[in-house]
Structures are given as structure tokens and as C-alpha cells.
């Protein structure tokens, strides 16, 4: 195993996925521990600015410093808001709880936060983004080095995850097509009148090519390095184990992005129990199926970074 030099900037992993309650936070907290156990230092950042709970999932009391202390400029650097944890190599930046308005970070604040996340003194920075497809969530997702989409094997959840991927795909294009005229064209193409058919990726490329013949190449470049991992949580029947591969394949074939299967995590009643007992699953029940699956996920995510670093 290679432990990364602390001086280089951390690799940012972002967990999102559209639907609430699919297990993003439980996975984030336990994944952070499993990753730290593998000799990689981790900062878990609770970015669910409307409903923070990472500290509870890690079994910690209410932290004195929170991410909002940095966002609202009471603290100068983000690194100062890190709360130590009993897990070696793992630090936490706690979320704000249900502070009114906290979920609506302004643009300048968002960019400042993104910049500062890159300066944190760990190998990996793991963001728990919370639910939804607001620009707040999307910008951190597409700005990360690795996005992790969590879903459950049911129609509502998969629909949300696919919509999340679509929104992230378009957001990535807008954010990375830097030149002004082109960017406004992309914006215009994406801006849809209410209840119109959403634009398909193919239509977008065709339409953009009509405006600028270089466009398809630029769109492709904008999407390079955008390869989210698909994780299906709370799998109960063997038939649903194929879902991560299928969803990743669909995203590759539909959006042309390098999506890949991060794997599946079984439904495990020990998860609910450890949440109630306020102990991380991987610590309370290291032999639980959930813990084994999260360990494998940590391996897969670390390997993905090793191959493209």
C-alpha cells in the first residue's frame, strides 16, 4: 500500500445520489473508517447542510466547531474546523445541523469551500453531500475527483439516481466549458422550458455541433475524468446484485461517461441496530455483511485512485 505524501493535495470523493434515506451517510461514515484503517488518512466532511449527522454516526458528541464556522468566516481556514475522532487517521468536519438557510450556500462561498477542501491535510477528503440535485450538491459532486452515487434497488430510488446522473452530467458540461460564448450556448441548450422533454446527451452534442464544429470535441474533453462509481445499497435479493454493473453500463452507453460499478451493499439489520446504539457498524459489527461490503468498497475506491493517479 502506498500512503500518499501529505504535502500533495487530497483526493476528493463525493457521495451523492438524489434520493433521501438511501444510506449515503451511513456508508460515508463507515467508508471513512474503513479507508483510514487501510493506512490512508481521511477527512469526512458532513456537507448535508440541512440535516447533518456524521458525528452521531461516528459515535461522537456534538462537536464544538462546524463547517459553518468556516463558511461564515468565524474561523479562517477550513483545516481548523477538523474534529479529531477515536479512529486513527480519521478527522471529521461536522455539519451544521438544521440551521435555517444553511443549505443555500452562495456562489462565492461555494468556490471558497471547494478551494479549501483541496488544502485539507489528509490523503482523502470524503464528502457526504446529502440528498437532492441542487447546484450546491451538484457542484461539489462534479468538482470532486471521484463521485459515488448511492441508490437502492427500487424504482423511485433508481429514478432519482438516474436523474442525479443526468443533472451532474449537464452541470459538469456547464462548469468545464470555460470559454464564454460556448458556455452560454451550452447553458441555453440545457435550459429547458418547464415540462418539455429533457434534452438527451446525443441531442445536446448534435445541437452544439451545429453551432460550433469543434463542439463535440470540447464536450468530450469536458467529460474526461468524470467517472462516477455506482453503489447499490440495501440489496436483498441476488437478482439485484447485477444492478451496479447495469446502471454503470447504462451511464456509459447513454452519457458516454466512464461510470463504473462500485458494487452492492447488502441490507443488514445490524446497520439499524448500530445506528440506534450510536456506534459505527464496522466497529460494532466488524463481521457483519455490511461491514465486509464497505471494506470492499474502500478497496475499490482506493484502487481506482491508484490507477489514474
Amino acid at each position: 500500500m502506498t500512503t500518499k505524501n501529505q504535502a500533495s493535495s487530497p483526493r476528493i470523493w463525493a457521495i451523492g445520489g438524489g434520493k433521501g434515506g438511501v444510506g449515503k451517510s451511513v456508508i460515508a461514515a463507515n467508508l471513512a473508517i474503513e479507508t483510514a484503517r487501510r493506512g490512508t488518512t481521511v477527512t469526512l466532511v458532513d456537507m448535508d447542510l440541512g440535516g447533518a449527522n456524521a458525528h452521531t454516526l461516528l459515535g461522537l458528541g456534538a462537536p464544538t466547531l462546524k463547517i459553518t464556522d468556516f463558511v461564515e468566516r468565524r474561523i479562517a481556514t477550513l483545516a481548523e474546523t477538523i474534529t479529531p475522532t477515536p479512529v486513527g487517521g480519521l478527522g471529521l468536519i461536522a455539519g451544521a445541523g438544521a440551521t435555517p438557510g444553511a443549505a443555500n450556500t452562495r456562489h462565492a462561498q461555494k468556490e471558497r469551500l471547494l478551494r479549501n477542501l483541496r488544502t485539507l491535510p489528509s490523503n482523502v477528503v470524503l464528502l457526504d453531500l446529502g440528498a437532492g440535485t441542487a447546484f450546491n450538491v451538484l457542484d461539489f459532486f462534479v468538482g470532486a475527483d471521484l463521485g459515488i452515487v448511492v441508490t437502492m434497488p427500487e424504482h423511485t430510488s433508481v429514478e432519482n439516481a438516474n436523474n442525479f446522473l443526468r443533472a451532474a452530467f449537464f452541470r459538469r458540461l456547464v462548469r468545464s466549458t470555460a470559454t464564454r460564448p460556448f458556455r452560454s450556448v451550452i447553458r441555453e441548450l440545457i435550459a429547458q422550458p418547464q415540462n418539455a422533454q429533457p434534452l438527451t446527451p446525443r441531442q445536446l452534442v448534435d445541437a452544439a455541433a451545429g453551432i460550433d464544429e469543434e463542439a463535440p470535441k470540447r464536450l468530450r474533453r469536458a467529460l474526461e475524468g468524470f467517472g462516477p462509481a455506482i453503489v447499490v445499497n440495501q440489496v436483498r435479493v441476488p437478482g439485484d446484485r447485477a444492478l451496479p454493473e447495469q446502471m454503470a453500463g447504462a451511464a456509459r452507453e447513454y452519457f458516454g461517461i466512464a461510470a463504473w460499478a462500485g458494487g452492492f451493499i447488502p441490507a443488514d439489520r445490524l446497520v439499524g441496530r448500530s445506528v440506534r446504539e450510536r456506534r459505527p457498524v464496522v466497529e460494532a459489527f466488524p463481521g457483519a455483511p455490511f461491514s465486509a461490503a464497505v471494506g470492499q468498497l474502500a478497496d475499490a475506491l482506493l484502487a481506482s485512485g491508484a490507477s489514474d493517479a
Partner: protein
Amino acid sequence: MPDAPDPSDLKLLGLRPGATRGDLRRAYQRARSTWAAGSLATYGLVEDSEREEILARLTAAYERLARSLEAGPAPGEPNSQEAPQDARQPRGDQVSGAESAPSPAAVDRPPANPGATLRRQRLSKGIAMELLARETRIRPAILEALEEGDTARLPAPVYIRGFIIAYAQAIGLDESEALARRYLEWLETRGA
């Protein structure tokens, strides 16, 4: 000799150059289940027409790749596929054009080959040629000739009606009798 595997076909199915037949089969099985009607994985992603178009593209790519891998120097596998030599002729522009663009390219030939419709329907349901051959017990060479309307490779018209009906039923089309009639009428206009 068929061509080497087309890189864009490989890319479409997420395969690297040097992929084996086993890789190809697994990749296509995954793609087929992903884009099948009622698939959970693509729920909320596409409209049905778009789903069928994607499935057709993937199936066509699979068939082209299967053909080039099958003819390649595969270790230990006798080249036992029932396709005779003449089935290996380079395909006409009409067919490959219709594959890459969903709208048929050849509009200058007035009476459209009903076999092309069969092919489009087959691909959009993700039914690869080998599967159809197994279902209908008709040799792939004949099925291909039916789709291409290649009179030189087709049997006498009296046998064709049954072939078309079997084909249409195997891919789940209701109007198999009518299709067979149209097909034979079309063959007559071609002087077969």
C-alpha cells in the same frame, strides 16, 4: 475475410482491443439486460423509443464484433458456424448505413425491402442473429439473406413464406402473415 473488430463497436460495448468472444458475450448480456424493456437500471433515464434505439445499436455492434471474432484465429475452436462462404461477403452500404443512423439511408430505391424492417425490429428488441437462428431453427445465412433481400442467396419463393412467418413470430410481431405477403410481393417487384 471479415474485418478486424471495429474500435467504435468495441468502445460502445465497453471492450478493449483483444477482447475475447467470452468478453464480448458477457458485455452484450449485460448491455441487453440493462436496456431491456422494464429494466430497473434504466428507469427514469430514457423514453421507450430511445431505449429501443440504444438496444438496436448495441445489438448491431455485438453482431459485427461476433462475426469478426468468430473468423479470427480463436484458439482451439473449429470454425464450425453454419454460415457458408458467401455469407461472408462484404455487406452492402444499405445495411451498414441503416445501422449507424437509425433512419434508413437508401431512399432512392422506391420499394423498401421489408427485410430491413424485420431487421430493425429485431435489433430494437435486442435479439441477436444467433438467438433468432436458435429460436427459428433457420440458418443464419438465410436469415441474413432475408433481411438483406438478397435474392441470390435466398431459396425459392415457395419456401420463403414460412421463413418470414417464423422470423416475425420469433421476434414477437403479430402481423406475420401480412409481412410474409408483403415480402413476397416485394420479391416479385425485384423479379425473383
